[in-house]
């Protein structure tokens, strides 16, 4: 067992998958000579050469679409989009092509590709570079959307994504790259896509998150334990397909839930979770499902404004306390 960063887990996995399968290759902006905007691909150009680590022009629609076309002929491209914001430039190729080609042609060709891209705010990057728009892709049948929150998950889920025959949007997070966690040495675990995980068991309330907010939820659960509140944490891991059973099973046990999401609230991922909970656990619910989400503004640059707009551990704790009060339980 080694303790490594989320970044290292991604890099080690890319490297191992490229050694394992000659059809796996990387393309994206600045992933080669520059070694990646966030250094995920550091060292890979030197090791594998330009054929398999391909720097692209600034042309997201062009190179994402080229990856789709290459995947149709059986290669397994792993595309890096510098941030999820830039996926908007490639959205026609992702939604109208990658997600449609298998079904639209009656299952004649699959599109085994991965689009890796980080979401996340909090870096003072302003309105166009701080969005969390994974919802757009989670909405689309034909795509699979993964959102790992720990280094071990990042590794096992990236392995799953690369070996899967469908297009996978693999959501990373700027706030997670430097986080550390245990990863088994020589690990070759392949995560099961479409499964959430209960990452902490509890009895008082269910906290549901994904990506960075799953990590924040775990930290908050730890803190609330000191107050004697037993929090169960569900890490969604897979945004499409969505594992509603795991969520509902947990809420049936705890009787209440708070969803933590880094995106905007209205129509966001949390809205789908809350709707699923009311349908699957109506008779078990003791309080309305609360959502903790980003303030609904274009993200400002100035630090105090940005900090205020983002969900924080404190905002999560507040929502948990208020929910438990609504249930009628005494909280600290």
């Amino acid at each position, binding site marked *: 067992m080694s303790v490594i960063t989320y970044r290292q887990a991604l890099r080690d996995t890319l490297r191992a998958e490229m050694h394992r399968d000659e059809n796996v290759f990387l393309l994206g902006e600045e992933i080669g000579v520059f070694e990646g905007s966030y250094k995920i691909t550091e060292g890979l150009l030197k090791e594998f050469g330009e054929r398999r680590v391909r720097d692209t*022009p600034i042309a997201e629609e*062009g190179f994402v679409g080229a990856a789709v*076309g290459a995947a149709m*002929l059986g290669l397994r491209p792993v595309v890096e989009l510098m941030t999820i914001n830039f996926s908007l430039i490639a959205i*026609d190729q992702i939604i109208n092509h990658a997600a449609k080609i298998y*079904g*639209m*042609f009656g299952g004649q060709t699959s599109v085994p590709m991965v689009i890796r891209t980080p979401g996340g705010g909090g870096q003072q990057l302003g309105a166009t570079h701080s969005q969390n728009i994974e919802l757009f892709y989670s909405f689309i049948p*034909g795509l699979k959307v993964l959102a790992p929150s720990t280094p071990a998950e990042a590794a096992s889920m990236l392995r799953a994504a690369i070996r899967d025959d469908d297009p996978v949007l693999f959501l990373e997070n700027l706030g997670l790259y430097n986080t550390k966690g245990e990863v088994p040495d020589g690990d070759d675990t392949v995560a099961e896509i479409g499964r959430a995980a209960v990452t902490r068991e509890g009895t008082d309330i269910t906290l549901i998150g994904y990506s960075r907010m799953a990590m924040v939820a775990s930290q908050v659960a730890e803190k609330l334990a000191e107050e004697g509140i037993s929090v169960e944490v569900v890490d969604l891991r897979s945004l499409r397909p969505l594992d509603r059973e795991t969520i509902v099973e947990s809420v049936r046990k705890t009787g209440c839930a708070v969803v933590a999401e880094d995106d905007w609230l209205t129509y966001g991922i949390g809205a789908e979770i809350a709707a699923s909970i009311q349908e699957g656990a109506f008779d078990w619910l003791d309080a309305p499902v609360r959502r903790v989400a980003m303030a609904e503004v274009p993200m400002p640059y100035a630090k105090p404004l940005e900090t205020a707009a983002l969900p924080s551990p404190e905002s999560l704790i507040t929502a948990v306390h208020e929910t438990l009060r609504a249930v009628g339980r005494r909280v600290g």
Partner: protein
Amino acid sequence: MADTAKPKGGGTARSTGGRRRSRKDAAPSIADEQPKTLLEYYRQMLLIRRFEERTAQAYTQARIGGYCHLNLGEEATIVGLMTALQERDYLFTNYREHGYAIGKGIHPRRVMAELYGRSTGVSKGWGGSMHMFDTETRMLGGYGIVGGQLPLATGAALAVSYRGGDEVVMCQMGDGTTNIGAWHESLNIASLWNLPVVFVVINNYTGMGTTVEKSSAEPELYKRGSAFRIEGVRVDGQDVLAVRDAATDLVERARSEQRPFLLEAMSHRMKGHSVVDPAKYRTPEQVEEAKANDPVASFESQLLEAGVLTEELKQEIADSVRDEVTDAADFAENSPHPDVATLFDYTYATPVANESRRMPADPVFAD
């Protein structure tokens, strides 16, 4: 309107001079061709013509749904282009592709059945008019979004290049496509990475109802490759032999030189943008011009004049084509509709946990 469909001094014009030609610049002549070859081209062109006429009929009879764009007027271009491809070469097209599907080798029955939305259709009834796909003949799709096929074709050529293969990718599109971002991004990438892809622009002077002059700042579209150092050629799309020669030249050069090329075929759309478009925006002169440039009629009279085609042979071919189209329509009509039980069969290639198989009125939690 572009000043001329037929470039001065022969069947083709080029955007960059001084290159060797594998064929002579003069327009190809019927006299230099095998009668059998000419008759085969004629038959193919007539098949596409009659197939599309039958398609229009079936559409008005509500046997075909959705959008339906026909290749009427494009027959010489299609047959010329498809003749230039080897079986192993890949084809990507836009949504006006019925004729290309047939030309690439898909049986007309399966094309018509797709139009009828039947399970025997080339895309099993999942694609319809705009989305014909066939792995076996390497027709890698008609695409409904303008420009969508360009990055895909570029990526297919990347896969060929990655593996060191010798296949060529042909990517067909309409004139309006040369203004969309995917055009610029794809040509740039194809040229940067030396990919074996031939981009083919079918210039029928109009994108839906908007002329090339109103939409392209450089209306001589074959010149637009020069920004990416891609050699461009313009050819008379009404001349099957000229298209064949120009396309063969570029396809084989893409194969041997491992780089992209651009071909612009000057063509005519004989009807509206789609079956339901009466094309009222066209002047009577434009309608007359399209009629006068009917590639099937013009090739037919050339062959009759040259004695390659006789009235008797003409009738024989007409009958056989008519039978083939009738057979395709009958096959489509008598084919089963896809079973609703297959609704969830093609969402994912790799089965996945918690995939939704909910019908519209079903609860989210079925138990």
